[in-house]
Each structure stands twice: as structure tokens, then as C-alpha cells.
């Protein structure tokens, strides 16, 4: 798949937060001083410059994720974006997303981010309920979330996402509905609603283990999920990925690249790239990363997987089925050179029998019931 004409996305990882949330398993460190951010910005720029030579593909999206990228000053974001524009071929109008957390930005910051070129924001609201936010160990309450959203609207952003989490301890259908209602009030173009799934390493998982808190049962979680599906559909949102909803035309283009199993370049400490059929993990350890970038030493890179054409095709199925549009027969064949029905007829018909997959002339896709059971489909395509 080393196709240098295909457009790719750049993901830039900013591994700093004001403090670590209870459920967090992202690579992110509590920030200590502003100087680190400046050094880190410089390192990112160096790495962008350095990698530019080897990347011939045009860039179509930039995503600053974290961590909390909104801890960067708009001016730092500007310099990073400048390095992208300077070193890479740009394809059409870039989607430039940035993740923010409530209470880390004010109206002026947001305006400045917009003026330096950020055209999409993703706001980590998670919930509007103070108790729930507390249980998650978030730094903000419902009020701060509302204030930040208000500022985002005021600053004139017309493409932004609200991240929500459901399946919280003691969460009820009513409190979830409240959160969904509150989100809708701000008229976002995009909503991500994630089931709380705890990695064993997190403090919250430990609390579940020791019985200090307890999660909901599968039935309750499923009913929260399907409540969101129905409600957001009524509100005119298109359910385009298992956990993602948008106004028509406002799908996150960067994330679509992942689900279409397209390639992407990961910049920054701990970022993952998928280039030339390989997934690799960039230099771990912020200090090492900064050091190596400053001195020009090569970055430590861990190869996560080297994929055969068959594995790439399997990825495209597993990831592509996350999208409500599913897999298109012709597109798949053009891309991977074999007929998916020829190869996987048994699995596909078996899943159809179980009511997990549906098919039309051009494509096959998950049924509504299958979204929350989707691993049952995916694991059959693993090679």
C-alpha cells in the first residue's frame, strides 16, 4: 500500500494534562511548567521538519490530540501548523482539529486558535453532571463545561465536537438524557458518545476491583447506548460510526482516515504512525523525545506490526464495519484485489443469519442491533 499519491492525515500528540483523570489510559502526564510545553513545541516542529523528506503524500487533515492540546498557546499551535504547511504537500482545504478540555481555555484563546487556522474543536465535556464528573476525576464541573461551550460558540466555531461518556457508576437513563439534552442546547455539529471501558491500569479500574464503585450491567449499558442512538437520530444527527454522530457533512475527516484503514503520520512522543503497511510507536518518554529532537539523534521507534496485504485487507474490514456505511464491495475489490464475498461468504452469511450484518447491492454493514455486539462480527475477520 505504499501509495504516495493517497492523502494522509497527520496526528500530533500533546501528552500533557493539568492532572490525570481517574479513568485515563492515554499517554499523558500531569504538566509541571510552561517551559516543557515550549520545548515540546520545538521538538514537534523539528520532528515535522525531519519527517517531511520521507513523506510524499499530500496531507488532508491535521489532528492535535492528547492529552490536552489546548494547554498550548495559540502561538505555539500556529508555529506547529506553519511547519506542516512549510514541509508537506497540502491537499485542498485542511481539516485542522484540536482537542480541548473545559476550563483550560477562555474566549480569547479560542478566538486565537481559530485565527491561527484551527477549524475544528473537540471538547472533552464527558458529562454535565457534577457527581459523574467527580467520579471520573475530571478537573471541571458541569458549569465550566457549559462556559467553555458558550465561548466556543461565541468565538464563531461552526464545526466542533462534544465528547460524552456513558456507563458511569450510578448513572441513570434520566441523567444520561439530561447530559444529551444539555449537549444539544449548544447545537454542536458532532457528538462522540463513548462507553466507559476501563483499562486495568487505571485508578478507577482498581476501585471497581476492590468494590468501592461498581459499573452498570450489560443490559443497562446497552439501553444507555440505544437511548443515545434514538435521541440523536431524532435530533437530526447521522450515526456514522459506532460511537460517533454528526450533522450531515460534519463527519470527522481525520478519524474517517483511521476507519477507512488509510495511512497516517503520528508526530510527537508516543504517537502511532501507519505508513507503508507498518504501524509504529514513536519515541516514548517526553524527556528522551525532547532530547533526541534537540540533538538530532534518531528517535526510538517501536514497530507494532508489519502487515501483509491480507492483514491490511482484514484491518479495512474490521475498521470499515465500524462505519454505518460499511464496506463497499467494488471499492474493496479495487483496493485489495480480491472479492470479499468470494473470501468471506461463510462468515458473512453466518453473521446475516444471526442478524448482525445486513447487505444491499453495493455493500454490507452492521445492523443496528450489532453495533453494541460488533466484536462478535469483527473477531471473525481477524487473520
Amino acid at each position: 500500500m505504499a501509495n504516495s499519491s493517497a492523502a494522509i492525515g497527520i496526528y500530533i500528540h500533546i501528552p500533557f494534562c493539568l492532572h490525570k483523570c481517574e479513568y485515563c489510559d492515554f499517554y499523558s502526564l500531569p504538566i509541571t511548567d510552561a517551559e516543557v510545553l515550549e520545548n515540546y513545541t520545538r521538538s514537534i516542529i523539528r520532528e515535522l521538519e525531519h519527517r517531511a523528506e520521507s513523506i510524499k503524500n499530500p496531507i488532508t487533515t491535521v489532528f492535535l490530540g492528547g492529552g490536552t492540546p489546548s494547554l498550548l498557546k495559540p502561538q505555539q499551535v500556529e508555529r506547529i501548523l506553519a511547519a506542516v504547511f512549510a514541509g508537506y504537500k497540502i491537499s485542498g482545504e485542511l481539516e485542522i482539529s484540536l482537542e480541548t478540555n473545559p476550563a483550560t481555555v477562555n474566549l480569547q484563546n479560542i478566538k486565537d486558535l481559530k485565527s491561527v487556522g484551527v477549524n475544528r474543536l473537540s471538547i472533552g465535556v464527558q458529562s454535565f453532571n457534577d457527581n459523574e464528573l467527580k467520579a471520573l476525576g475530571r478537573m471541571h464541573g458541569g458549569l465550566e463545561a457549559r462556559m467553555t461551550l458558550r465561548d466556543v460558540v461565541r468565538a464563531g466555531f461552526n464545526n466542533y465536537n462534544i465528547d460524552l461518556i456513558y456507563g458511569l457508576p450510578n448513572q441513570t437513563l434520566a441523567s444520561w438524557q439530561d447530559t444529551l439534552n444539555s449537549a444539544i442546547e449548544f447545537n454542536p455539529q458532532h457528538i462522540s458518545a463513548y462507553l466507559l471501558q476501563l483499562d486495568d491500569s487505571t485508578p478507577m479500574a482498581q476501585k471497581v476491583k476492590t468494590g468501592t464503585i461498581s459499573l452498570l450491567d450489560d443490559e443497562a449499558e446497552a439501553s444507555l447506548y440505544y437511548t443515545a442512538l434514538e435521541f440523536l437520530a431524532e435530533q437530526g444527527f447521522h450515526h456514522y460510526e459506532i460511537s460517533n454522530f454528526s450533522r450531515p457533512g460534519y463527519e470527522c475527516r481525520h478519524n474517517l482516515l483511521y476507519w477507512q484503514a488509510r495511512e497516517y503520520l503520528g508526530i510527537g512522543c508516543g504517537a502511532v504512525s501507519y505508513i507503508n503497511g507498518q504501524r509504529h510507536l514513536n519515541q516514548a518518554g517526553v524527556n528522551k523525545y525532547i532530547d533526541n529532537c534537540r540533538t538530532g539523534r534518531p528517535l526510538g521507534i517501536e514497530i507494532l506490526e508489519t502487515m501483509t496485504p491480507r492483514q491490511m485487507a482484514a484491518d479495512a474490514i474490521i475498521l470499515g464495519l465500524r462505519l454505518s456505511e460499511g464496506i463497499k464491495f467494488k471499492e474493496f475489490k479495487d483496493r485489495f484485489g480480491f472479492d470479499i464475498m468470494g473470501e468471506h461468504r461463510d462468515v458473512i452469511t453466518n453473521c446475516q443469519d444471526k442478524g448482525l450484518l445486513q447487505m444491499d447491492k453495493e455493500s454490507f454493514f452492521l445492523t443496528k442491533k450489532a453495533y453494541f455486539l460488533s466484536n462478535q462480527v469483527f473477531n471473525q475477520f481477524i487473520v
Partner: protein
Amino acid sequence: MQNRIRNFSIIAHIDHGKSTLADRMLQITGALTAREMREQFLDKMDLEREKGITIKLQPVRLNYKARDGQTYILNLIDTPGHVDFSYEVSRSLAACEGALLVVDASQGIEAQTLANVYMAMDLNLEIIGAVNKIDLPGAEPEVVKQEIEDVIGLDQQGIIPISAKLGIGVEEVLEAIVAKIPPPQGDEKAELRALIFDSYFDPYKGAISYIRVDSGELHKGDMIRMMYSGKDFEVTEIGVLSPFMTTVESLKAGEVGYLAAAIKNVADTKVGDTVTLASCPASQPLSGYQEVKPVVYCGIFPIDNSDFEKLRDALEKLKLNDSSLIYEPESSDALGLGFRCGFLGLLHLEIVRERLEREYDLSLMATAPSVIYRIILTDRSEETVRNPSHWPDPQRIDKVMEPYVKAIIMVPNDYVGTVMELCQDKRGSFINMEYLTPHRVMISYNLPLAEILFDFFDSLKSRTRGYASLDYEVRDYVVSDLVKLDILLNGEIVDALSSITHKDKAYFRARGLVERLRKIIPRQMYEVSIQASIGNRIIARESVKAMRKDVLAKCYGGDITRKKKLLEKQKEGKKKMKQIGHVEVPRDAFMTVMELDDGK
């Protein structure tokens, strides 16, 4: 010549120190140099090591220079340490003139040991007692000596206190072997009669038999005849184990060694058979030969149906080495094609199953073990049932008989109550109880074999904090009120889950089974109903609710690899499942479902 030979066995309970003592003997007699000395040299199968049991040590020949200045040949012939193999024990003992009884000085005699000592006494063996581990702080050599005297009748004066670990008393043991065990007295001039006490399959030399020459003389190149099987072979190699295989020209009356004769199948060198010369055969074989018969059967099926031939090959190869293993093809609606296999006991079953999986790389399912039932039909004919799914229609049954054992349990007297309770619970009938010492008791019970097959020993151990020991012997068939209990998944009988149970326990067992299945059958796309029935009557039911969640809510560029690992794991997990109708059942279910502790 024979004056300088001593043939002996060691009888000891597991962990009482048999292997350690044997190693020490090898070291003292210089059979092994320090470099060759490896802990427990004689204990060879990995599987046995892992299970912490010694099934059998290989025989070994030691040259011991005694205090009288003479050098003696001591042949150590081991006895397997498990009730499944008691026939083999008897043949090993029959190859000896004496036995060394080793008892842990802090544990005392165990049931299994006692059974073997009785066997040795019946064969007129000279018994030498030793109490081991006297170096341990909890050792009570005097108490244990007294116990040995009381129970077995050995004079405690003669019992030797030893520490196999530290080497204390081991020379005394060797001296006692020389002094007390009579030398063999076979007639070298008579016709050849040699007892096969063990055999195994060697891919290069064919079946190797361990033999004890009783009378006459055997040479390389001789044409021999197996007296029970009637087959003739030409001897290609004979030798002794000292402890490595060392060829010799001849083996004479009284000697112990091995023979190879390009025999392709161990079934032709059956333990207990008598080797004689084809040219001038002995008139009578040695006594005591028995055809070993399996007492437990279970179905063994490949998970992947296409492995059926591979399984057949593997069984064929295993049988080369294990003539007591019996198998015949079987077909199950639920599990497809496989084999119904017969074993000497549960340990034997477990060993065979593990070897099939490990050495032949097979993924297998085993059904719950079953004993052999005898059924008298209303038309007076008799049927033998080894497979619960072949149980006749109850309308046709006049009466059913099941095998009973006589079980002997030894236990500190504090536990008498709980042991009796357990036996009662397992449909046992009390025979008697004897005090071995003021604190230890021997309890005898008649029990259905089927009841002790599953978790009896585990329950016994846990209820007596590990103090109880058990020995049993299959006796006769007894009429019982037995019924067939079926399990239905989504309304369909799963033949591989059928079992036979006593009528009074059927309801209880049914409840236990369906509950257990509910726990081990994972949630599936649709609700699964689990029912237990006797004939058409449903007597217990449960259900597994439909799966509602199996999702990765988040999957972005950074964690695709990790998320795929999870899916891979799920896929692996599926391989451990068997699809029965529309239900996926973990393959272990067929075995584990039966391990009910109905005592709790």
C-alpha cells in the same frame, strides 16, 4: 551366582521419599558418577513429575560391596504408586524376593502402602521396614515404628530409621537387604521361564520388556515364546540397567534385565506374561497373569472434526506403549466422530489425554468418564453399557447393575465422623473400622465405583486436611436403582452430556448440572435454555441470557494494534468452543460439568 543376587522393590506412599532413597542408593553404590547424578534419576516421565506422582521408576541394577567383603547385585524393581496400576504392582512384586517398606516418620502408613504391603506378604516377600525423614523436626520415628508393628506385624526392632535426604541409615538399609532378603533360587538348568514385569516401546528396538528370569537361561539370538499370547520372537538384544542399558550375553535364573526382540507392539509383551524358549518350552507359565481390563470409559473427540484420523494415529502409537489402553470409534451427534476409550482409572485417563494433546498436538474434548454398567433387559438378555447415551429405553430395562469397590480409608481418628458422612453421602455401606494406633483408624466401605470416580478423593482430602489416604479394589456388580439423566440445550438433547445417576440423587444432580452449565456457557447471541430431564420429564432448568454487549467503544489510530489483540484473543477463545446446534459450548464443559461436589 544367585547367592549374590537380591531382588527387591520399594513400597512407599507418594512423597514419603522413594525416589530420594533410590537416588541415594545409586550414589552410594557408585552406579552413577556425581556428574551423572541428577535429582531423582529414576523418575523419568515429565508428566509424572508435573503431577507429583511416581508411576514407576525404571528398574536398576546396583553393585554393592557389603561389609562382609563380598559384592552383591541388588536389583531394584519399582512399583507404581497409584491404585489405577495395582496389577502392575503385583507383577513387579512377583519379580522380587523382598520389599523395602518406606514410611515417612511424620506421616505414618497410608492406605495405598498398606494394600501393597499386603500384596507383598501374599507373595511371600521378606519385608524390611524403614522410617524416613528422621531429620525433620516433626518426625516421630518411635510412634511410626509402633504403628508398623501393630498394623503389619513387623518387629519394630528391625525397622531402620533413615534420612534419605541426608544419607543417614542408607548403608544399614543396603546391609539389611543383603542379610535378610533371600537370594533367588531358580534352577538354571530347568526350562526358561522369565516374568515380564514391565514393557515400553522404543522406536528403534521395538518393544522392550523388563524381565526377571525365574529359571533357565536366556541368550541373545534365542527364539522365545510368550506363553500367554503364544507368539514367537527372536531375541535381538538382552542386557541389564546399571542404570544405563548395558548389553550382556545371557541372563540366568535370578537375574533381572531387559530384552528386545523386534516386537512391534507392546501388546505382545504383556505385563505378567512368561517368556520361554520356543525350542524347549516350559510346561507351565508363571502364575498370576491377568488380562487387564479397563474400568472407566470416556469419549475422546477432536475439537476439529478433521483431526479424527490424526487422533486415530496418535491412539495407535500410544497403544504401542500402553497395552491397557482400549479404544473404539464412536460417533456423537454433538461432538462428531471420536473414540470411546477405556482406562484403568482416572489417573490413567488423564495421563493419556494429556499425552495425546501434548505429544501429538491435538485439541481434544473428553466426555465425563463412565463406569461399565450391566443391564438385564425384560427379555432376559443382558447388555453392557460403557456410554450413557447408549442406555436402553427404560421400558426395556428389568434391572441395572453397577460395579462396587471395597475402599479402605486411613485417617486420624478426629476425622472418622466426616469420612463416614462422605461415604454415606456417596451411597456407601459401612463394612468395619479398626484402630491402627490410638490415633489412627482404618475404615472400610463398599462404595459404587461411579461415586468415587469423580471428586471423591478430592473431597476426602479437603475434609480431612489432606490426612486421609485411600485405596480401593473393584469387587462385584450390585443391583442399583439407576437412571439416565439427559441435558438439553435449547430443547435438543446433547448426547455427550448424558450421565447415569442414582434415582435418589437425580434431582440434586440435575440442579447442580444445569447451574454449572449456566455458569460455563458464555452469553450468546440468543438466550440459551438449559434443561435436565429423565425420560420426557424436565426436572431442572436454567437459562443463559442473550449477550447484550461486546463492543470496543473507542478505536482510533493509536490503539488499533491493541484493540486487534483483544479481537485475536476472542478468536482464540472461540477455538475452545464447540458449536452444538446454535449453542457454543466450551469444550471443557463435557468433562468439568461432571465434577460436581455434591457434598457441598
